[in-house]
């Protein structure tokens, strides 16, 4: 067990592309840290640099206080779980798990004991004599985990370990991974592109974009107080709604309507008289007929026609199309491209609202929607910065 420190770590490929730029991270002993971001953001490169599978161009990597930049992977004493599992197909499950111990030249009895122990933890005991070819996806995934935990390394590195499982198994394995990490208390760096995994698994989450860290923090903090447009759009499902907005004399003009700004925000936007982007999470809308009077004045109301209502049982997702310009910023385009929705034709912006299950809104209805103005975020479209962050809440 150990802490891992990345000090201005940079990775430049021979063709000049900067995969990771001056990354600073301190991963505490026993921490479960998630690296998340769209594909090509440098998260896997970062993991490979920690593993020693990629050279570090500049900067320093310290594990347990020791500089390990030039150490081979085997001298770093860290284990890795690969997205493809990378099980040795010519070896049985037992041999697969014993491989790192054999290389460490442990005695036969010790190897057997450790393998049996790890197999018990992961419920692999019955499968020990099988070859990987005869295992299901979930079983292979557990063998890959087993091979990592068996030698009690200083840290685990996991590269999208669940992305090859089907949806149901993925949720199940998520809890397995989480419990295992808590139980072993081993420092873990986990790479994923799935924001749900990031939110549910990690003690802390690092959001990366184009080789640079966007924000580091606890999942809830990232969700409630995103530093910038990118983080705001990346975290949360369904994602935050964005609209262009202008502010003048304390009022916010958007495609949804004109809203008065609160005291706090009025101060924050004072020096931003130009265009802004307003971001509102789906759960900060509500069917206006369900709002109690006591909280009604904390928000504003507008009317819109519901395109689609998805009832989830516990609540309802209501989709609206709002006429007018779409919010545009480099960050939003990148997010849209990553989700594969960059070129979806749509006249106007989509608005997703999460209403209580009691809402009676139906498709085609013109609904009165209440929006909680306390919870809105305002972003500067030029650099994507969140200008409504509370003092001291910037990560």
């Amino acid at each position, binding site marked *: 067990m150990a802490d891992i420190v990345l000090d201005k770590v940079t990775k430049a490929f021979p063709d000049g592309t900067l995969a990771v730029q001056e990354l600073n991270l301190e991963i505490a002993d026993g921490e479960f840290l998630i690296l998340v971001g769209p594909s090509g953001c440098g998260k896997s490169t970062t993991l490979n640099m920690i*593993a020693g599978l990629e050279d570090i161009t500049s900067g320093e990597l310290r594990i347990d206080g020791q500089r390990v930049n030039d150490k*081979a992977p*085997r001298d770093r004493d*860290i284990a890795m779980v690969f997205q493809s599992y*990378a*099980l*040795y197909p010519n070896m049985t499950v037992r041999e697969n798990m014993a491989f790192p111990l054999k290389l460490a030249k442990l005695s036969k009895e010790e190897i057997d004991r450790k393998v049996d122990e790890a197999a018990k933890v992961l419920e692999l005991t019955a499968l020990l004599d099988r070859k990987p*070819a005869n295992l299901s*996806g979930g079983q292979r995934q557990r063998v890959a985990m087993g091979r990592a935990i068996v030698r009690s390394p200083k840290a685990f590195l996991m590269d999208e370990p669940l992305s*090859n499982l089907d949806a149901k198994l993925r949720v199940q394995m998520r809890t397995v991974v989480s419990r295992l990490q808590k139980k072993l208390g081993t420092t873990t760096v986990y790479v994923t592109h799935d924001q749900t995994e990031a939110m549910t698994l990690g003690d802390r989450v690092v959001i990366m974009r184009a080789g640079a860290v966007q924000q580091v923090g606890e999942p809830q903090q990232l969700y409630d107080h995103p530093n910038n447009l990118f983080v705001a759009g990346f975290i949360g499902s369904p994602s935050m709604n964005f609209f262009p907005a202008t502010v003048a004399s304390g009022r916010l003009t958007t495609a949804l309507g004109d809203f008065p700004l609160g005291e706090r925000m009025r101060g924050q936007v004072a020096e931003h008289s130009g265009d802004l982007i307003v971001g509102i999470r789906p759960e900060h809308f509500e069917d206006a007929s369900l709002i109690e009077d006591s909280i009604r004045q904390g928000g504003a109301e507008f009317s819109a026609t519901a395109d689609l209502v998805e009832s989830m049982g516990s609540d309802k997702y209501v989709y609206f199309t709002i006429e007018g310009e779409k919010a545009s910023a480099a960050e939003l385009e990148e997010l849209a491209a990553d989700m594969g929705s960059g070129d979806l034709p749509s006249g106007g912006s989509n608005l997703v609202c999460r209403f209580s299950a009691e809402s009676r809104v139906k498709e085609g209805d013109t609904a009165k929607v209440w929006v909680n103005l306390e919870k809105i975020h305002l972003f500067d479209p030029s650099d994507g910065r969140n200008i409504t962050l509370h003092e001291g809440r910037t990560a």
Partner: protein
Amino acid sequence: MAVIDQTARAKWRWSLIDLVVIVFALIPVLWITSLSFKTPATITDGNFIPREWTLENYRNIFSTDQFVRALVNSIGIGLISTLVAVVLGTMAAYAIARLDFPGKKLLIGISLLIAMFPQVSLVSPLFEIERSIGLFDTWPGLILPYITFGLPLAIYTLSAFFRQIPWDLEKAAKMDGATQGEAFRRVIAPLAAPGVFTTAILVFIFCWNDFLFAISLTSTERSRTVPAALSFFQGASQFEDPTGAISAAAVIITVPIILFVLFFQRRIVSGLTSGAVKG
């Protein structure tokens, strides 16, 4: 029912086509086998199954030093060439499949060029070169050109095999504490084994079958291989055709190849890499 009928009929049709192909390929082999068992008197009688069986032809070829010596040459030269070509080919193919190095495209291009090069055009220069440096009619004199032409074959087949092996396995081995050498020896090599065997067989067959270099670059029994030696077989008298002896020798040199392939068939065919990665 209709579907079953159709699949049954398709099966029959395919079996028939398979049979035709097999017969087409095997008739000459069976014919030469049959000739090898015929006596000199019946050799031209045109019967597919010999009327009189004899082992005389086999006894004859093994009683002459000419054939035994040629067989030793063939086996020795073939094995050494194969070993060297496969060892060098394995290293080159691994590098081509795994690494990006300057001149990689050039290397692949040159090896393809060599594979395509008409060997006939090299015979005269090689003859002159080998005579002047004293390699003519020696084992190395044949081994060197065999390696030259076997190597591109080895590199191409092996790099295809190496490309199939997921690179993650090597990374995983390194993470598990293996050195580069250990990762290759304990993880990559066992997986590449079927490819190495396949390649070895292909290269060996190439060396074993070669006639052009064998006839041009040798002059005595010292280094003459079987295909070349066959053409020097003589009948018992000046007026006797050595057909029986040549047939017997041809059968003898076909047998090792058949055994080779049968023996390693399972290794060649087996999908050893299945299950390494997600499925």
